[in-house]
């Protein structure tokens, strides 16, 4: 299960969160995002202690701009509220799990 993040709950759900949050920046019109969506959900069901969050860039342009998002899908891993690693494009489930593990 992923949490929908918007400009209202971002601070509470991501910035103030202790530990790891994996944030998927996406949009409805983005083809690769539709492929990545289920992969990110799978990551969430395997790695229970990491919050999986999704940000729709069309509805939340301020957040997209704040993190310099210029291509989607972009995934940013936050640790204790700070971005620690980022990837652009579709990646495999194993890649994301490795990304999470090396930032624990």
């Amino acid at each position, binding site marked *: 299960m992923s949490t929908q993040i918007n400009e209202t709950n971002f601070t509470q759900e991501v910035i103030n969160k202790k530990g790891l949050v994996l944030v998927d920046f996406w949009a409805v019109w983005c*083809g*690769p995002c539709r*492929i990545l969506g289920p*992969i990110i959900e799978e990551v969430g069901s395997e790695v229970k202690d990491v919050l999986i969050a999704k940000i729709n860039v069309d509805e939340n342009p301020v957040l997209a701009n704040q993190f*310099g998002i*210029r*291509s989607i899908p972009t995934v940013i891993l936050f640790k204790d509220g700070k971005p620690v690693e980022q990837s652009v494009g579709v990646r495999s*489930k194993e890649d994301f799990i490795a990304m999470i593990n090396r930032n624990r």
Partner: protein
Amino acid sequence: MDTTHNVIIIGSGPAGLTAAIYNARAELHPLVIAGLEPGGQLMTTSVIENFPGFPDGIEGPVLMQNMIAQAEKFDAKLVYENVVSVDFNQKPYKIKTPGNEYLTKSVIISVGSKPRRLDLESEAKYWGKGVSTCAICDAAFYKGKVVAVIGGGDSAMEEANTITKFAKKVYLIHRKNEFKASKIMQDKTFTNPKIEVIWNTVVNEIVGDMVVTGLTLFNNQTNTESELKVDGMFLAIGHIPSTEIFKDQIELDEVGYIKTPDGVHTSIEGVFVAGEVADPSYRQVITASGMGCKAALEAERYLSHLL
């Protein structure tokens, strides 16, 4: 690692997925190494109006998702990994990805082609941070901003015009003093008030902080460097076949396309080819699918002779 697959399909555009559907229906349990850009180039297009059977057109990404679903329904397995090397010197053939090594009796290569890059270090650094090859995907991020498009062909003109729907200004930068684009696209470009053409110029460096903030340009007539402030750069300088990993393993032509006597077979027994990687001339969804079908049937025939 232990199992030897019947057939591994490298690539997941229309060619690879059509091959997967055919081989899966033949109960060969194909493995599709789909890459990190699954669905291929169609994932970054909008509506496809010339694919038969869809009178109202179909969106590229939807068509590809349907093909993936169709292949998986018949038990094709997709993995989202990039192939890093292949070994066709001994059987079973070996295919390596960063995390796995696969063995297979036959291979269908359908890796397609990819947008040509400038090959600058700064280009890799700002990939997805202001450097893009897909206006349809990323133009919306440049509302009210200034953007450079590099290229002189139809696709450069198309990208430039698409981006003007969002950006306030588009510089179209070309290394020559004339475009090779069609007249209709050139007219559209020259009459678009938001587009300014910069002739005889190449990009020497991309500069920025967290995202792109500008370009260092080089004018090849005056031999002078200059700075240009932009928020993003879109590349439209053609496509190259994605065949580096095969170059010591299989015969390629001088550009890098895989050589094939008949559009299906390659210089290696049991290794077949489909789609744009062996077809520089047509490059259509339907031709790629057709080639995928042929390759799948040839692979099936080859496997039946092995038993």
